[in-house]
């Protein structure tokens, strides 16, 4: 038994090394003046200075965040209201909506992005510079996942409380807001956070729908790796490190909160 658990530990360790070594090594080198991994240079913060002072990089990061939060908010409203509506609709309507909802979930992002570009830009002639195709694309990417995270919460909900609220004189809107919403809020929040991560990670939909002058982190990084500009390349190492730290903080924060909540219940 001892032997197998040691082997298990080594295996798990190796997988973690595979997943994290590249990010961690890059993080170490982001604090040096080196232009390539492996070269030994002294400590330097110039990558971080470049990252936060170059207007092009700053605009790209802020633009990505604005797009992610904006389209995630839209997707959350649409998906949540849609899930509530579908839940109370006839079985036929509900299954119709659920089926179409699965398409962007299963579909390859390349196909989703390309098809939206064809409809909005080629057929309807909407200019990419209006940001409408880009936002529409990201909302289409995210809303189905919000729908999917809210629906199970609606099924678990105690529906008699809603009826009780109506019997006690609440309007349907008030009942939805103060009875239904609190019961599904955890699904809404996880849908929103999933929407943000999907939008932040997207490359394909943005490539096919974005204005030529606008870049998300993904499209910017992909173009930058094709070029040979060293200062930009190493500044992106700093960006990768910052994002890694932010993700660790968010994960640690949500875990500590969850542990505290468990502690309170116990």
């Amino acid at each position, binding site marked *: 038994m001892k032997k197998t658990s040691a082997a*298990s530990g080594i*295996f798990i360790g190796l*997988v973690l090394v*595979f*997943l*994290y070594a*590249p*990010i961690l*090594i*890059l993080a170490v080198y982001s604090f040096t003046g080196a232009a*390539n*991994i492996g070269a030994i240079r002294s400590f330097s913060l110039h990558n971080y200075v470049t990252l936060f002072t170059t207007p092009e990089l700053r605009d790209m990061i802020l633009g990505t965040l604005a797009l992610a939060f904006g389209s995630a908010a839209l997707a959350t409203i*649409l998906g949540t209201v*849609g*899930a*509530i*509506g*579908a839940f*109370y609709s*006839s079985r036929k*309507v509900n299954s119709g*909506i659920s089926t*179409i*909802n699965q398409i962007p979930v299963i579909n*390859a*992002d*390349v*196909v*989703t992005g*390309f*098809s939206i*570009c*064809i*409809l909005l830009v*080629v057929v309807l002639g909407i200019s990419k510079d209006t940001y409408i195709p880009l936002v*529409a694309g990201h*909302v*289409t990417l995210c*809303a189905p996942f919000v729908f*999917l*995270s809210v629906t199970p919460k609606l099924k678990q909900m105690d529906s008699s409380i809603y009826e009780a609220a109506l019997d006690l004189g609440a309007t*349907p809107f008030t009942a939805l807001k103060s009875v239904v919403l609190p019961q599904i809020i955890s699904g809404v929040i996880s849908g929103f*956070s*999933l929407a943000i*991560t999907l939008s932040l990670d997207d*490359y394909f939909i943005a490539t*096919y729908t974005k204005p030529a002058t606008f870049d998300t*982190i993904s499209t910017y*990084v*992909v173009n930058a*790796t094709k070029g040979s500009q060293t200062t930009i390349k190493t500044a*992106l190492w700093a*960006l*990768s490190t910052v994002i*890694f730290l932010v*993700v*660790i903080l*968010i994960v640690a924060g*949500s*875990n500590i909160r969850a542990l505290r909540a468990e502690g309170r219940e116990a």
Partner: protein
Amino acid sequence: MTALRFSRKNLALPYALFLLVFVAAPLLVLFYYAFTNGQGHFTLGNLTGFFTDPNTLGTLCYSFAIAAVTTLVCLLIAYPTAYILANSRFKQKSVLVMLFIMPMWINFSLRITALKEILTLIEGNLAMFPFFNAVIGMTYDFLPFMILPIYTTLSKMDRSLIEAAKDLGADEKAAFLKITLPLSVPGIVSGVSMVFLPAMTNYVVLDMLYNSTYIMGSLIGSYFSAYNWHGGSMIALILLAIICIFTLLTSGMEEEDSRAMGGARL
């Protein structure tokens, strides 16, 4: 009462409309473009062109090869990982599991950049092993998506079944092959569908690792750059057909909503 139900049902309207405009309509337009030429006349040329050109057929085969090998490698790494995690008695198990999920939330283009730097350091010239590098890159990108569903299925499994099998005389190996493995099929199927299809289409991973061979996604990208909407639509349609076949083959076997779980855990 009927008036009230009517108002709740109406909440489904905006989302249904949204799905029709941004999900269903783009696919219909895709159909139209795939089967017409530049003059708007009906043609099967795009379809027959794809299946008679050795280049595009080669691309299809190469995509399948990359996707199949990546899926297999991911499965061979992810299954033992998920198995060890699910059976571990480690006190901070949730933290350990989180470590394997966390890379999902770091922008993929930055992670591939990190991987590229490491591979360049090890191999010297990335162009020497294009297929190998593509598989490593895809595995690096998609591994968490294989680990998560398998882990979920394994940890939900009823442990008493294994004890029962052992009481009835099964050894460790027989219990695994007859109980654990069959019961984890839904997780495996979910994982495979979350790795195989993206591996056929995510051409950016290949681009960034200097693999200039096309996969299916790259074809859409190149038609897009050439403003050839008809050719691109046909490729998108062929991908859609592959996705549909894949989904039909695996329907009912999947772990429920596993793609939505990534966010639920945040």
